[in-house]
Structures are given as C-alpha cells and as structure tokens.
C-alpha cells in the first residue's frame, strides 16, 4: 500500500504538484489584492468587451460600467503579460517559450472562447477562481459545464489524431 501511493501520485501528476499549487496561490493572491483594495472582482475576460468599446459603437460594449472600467482593464491585462514575462526572466530561467499547438486550434478555439465567456458571464478566472471562491452556485454550474465539454472535446480531437 505504501508503495502504491507514490506510484499513483506519479501517474496522476507526472510533473509534481508544487509549481501548480504555488502558481494557483499567486493567481488567487493577485485577485485578492485587487479585491481588498478596490472591492472589484477582476475577471480576465471582461477586458475583451470593454476594449471593444474604444473602436465600436455597439451599445453592448458601451455600457456605462464598461466604459468606466476600460482603462484600468487595459492596465490589468498589460500587468498580467508583464507578470508572466517577469516569471520567465526569473524563476523561468530566462527561456522564452513558443507553443507547438496548431494555429487553427488557436483561431477556432479563440473565437468560441470569446463568444462563450461573454454569453456565460465569465471565464476561468471570473467563474473558476472568483465565483467558486465565493461559493456561487451560478459559477459552479458554469465551471462544471465548461470542464466537462472541454474534456470531451479535447479527448475527441486526440482520438482523431490531432496533436498537438
């Protein structure tokens, strides 16, 4: 039994769990700092619509609370990019990294993510991190839904031989 547990852990987490857990804590900490200072629950996907208000007259993107938050959301997004760059230059050992996932997957997946997050009122950070943290039933339903569908779709593509 004592020999089986490490084996199981190895097969479920072939790359260990430390950097996952620590990274997760920092993601939560970043969100928590913004909440404590401002009372705002900062999800990542609202940036898409608020930024569209700079270039589009559609009423959907020009809701008062979108226009009022669009500038700081640009700052928030650029800070996320910078934070990841700082990681790369420090703990990441200074090695830049480029994905080998096929571009069509980014294009098609990106469009669906853009539609889905806005129709569903949030994404992995808004619902997955903040909503679940708030014990929101709406967010639990949203997360369970996208998790199951994503697992099904990813495994279907894998079965069809799409890799990476």
């Amino acid at each position, binding site marked *: 039994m004592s020999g089986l547990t490490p084996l199981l852990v190895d097969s*479920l987490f072939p790359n260990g769990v430390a950097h996952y857990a620590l990274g997760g804590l920092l993601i939560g900490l970043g969100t928590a700092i913004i909440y404590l200072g401002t009372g705002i629950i900062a999800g990542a996907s609202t940036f898409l619509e608020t930024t569209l208000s700079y270039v589009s007259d559609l009423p959907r993107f020009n809701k008062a609370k979108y226009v009022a938050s669009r500038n700081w959301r640009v700052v928030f997004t650029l*800070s996320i990019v910078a*934070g990841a760059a700082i990681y790369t230059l420090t703990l990441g050992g200074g090695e830049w990294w480029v994905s080998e996932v096929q571009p069509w997957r*980014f294009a098609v997946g990106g469009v669906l993510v853009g539609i889905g997050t806005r129709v569903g009122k949030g994404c992995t950070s808004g619902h997955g991190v903040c909503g679940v943290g*708030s014990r929101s039933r709406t967010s639990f339903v949203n997360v369970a839904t996208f998790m199951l569908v994503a697992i099904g779709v990813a495994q279907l593509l894998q079965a069809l031989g799409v890799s990476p």
Partner: protein
Amino acid sequence: MSDGERGLGFLLTIIVGGLIFGFGLGLSNMARPEVVLDFLQFDDFGLVFVMGGAAVVTGTVFALAEATGRRAPLTGIDYGRRLKSFDKNVVTGGVIFGAGWGISGICPGAAYASLGVGNYPILVAIGGMFLGAYLQGLWRARRTESATRGTSAD
C-alpha cells in the same frame, strides 16, 4: 467612479495584482496550452491544484473581507458577495467556452500571460477572442433591435 476620478493608489493596486496574477499563471504553466490540454486529456491533473489553490485564497479573503462589513479603501465599494444571476446563458456560454477551451487549451487570462512567456502564436487566439466577443455583441444588438421592432408593431 470613472478611471479619471480614481487615484494613483487604485492603479498601483491593479498593477501589483495583475503582476502577481500573471506571475502565477507563468509559474503554474497555465500559460502553456499544452499543459492545459494534458489536463483535459487526463495526462497530468496539476490544473486541479492551480484552480483549487487560487479558489482557496480568494474564498478565504472574500469571506474575511465580507465579515468585516467594511468598504474597500480605494473605491468605497462594500465587500459583499456580488453573485451573478443564473439563467440558461450560464450553461449555453459554458458549453461554447468549454468547446473553445478544449480545442485550443487557452482561456483569456492564460492567453495574456502566454504572450508574456514569449508565445507569440497566441496572438491568433487573442484575436479570435476579440472576434468572438464582437460577434456576440453584434448578435445581441440584432436581437434587441428585432425585439424592439416586434413590440412597436403591436
């Protein structure tokens, strides 16, 4: 309160929070679509620790802040649960989002961070997200327009 009325402290808080958030996405490897796809294909369950670790922190901090009954110092917004209402869009959106996440292995926050680790092809995904958000806004506008026309015809 618009951005212009908010002070330097507000912006600094957003910057510090965003930097830590992005650093965490880099450290947890969520900025790498391959790692997310490994989770979805059951090859590496590490993502559970990322989402779980983050939700434990936000859950604890949100609950403690709410218990104080105070307001956020920089905006005066009170610490309370602002739960999103439930309707069928939450499920429909979840299905569409899940399909996109399963195809690409990328979600908005991780996509921004992905750019920061040097993954320039992710610009295709970010462009796609803007297009998707725009199409959704266009569709909602059309629907509202036809609904208005429907009522005025009565």
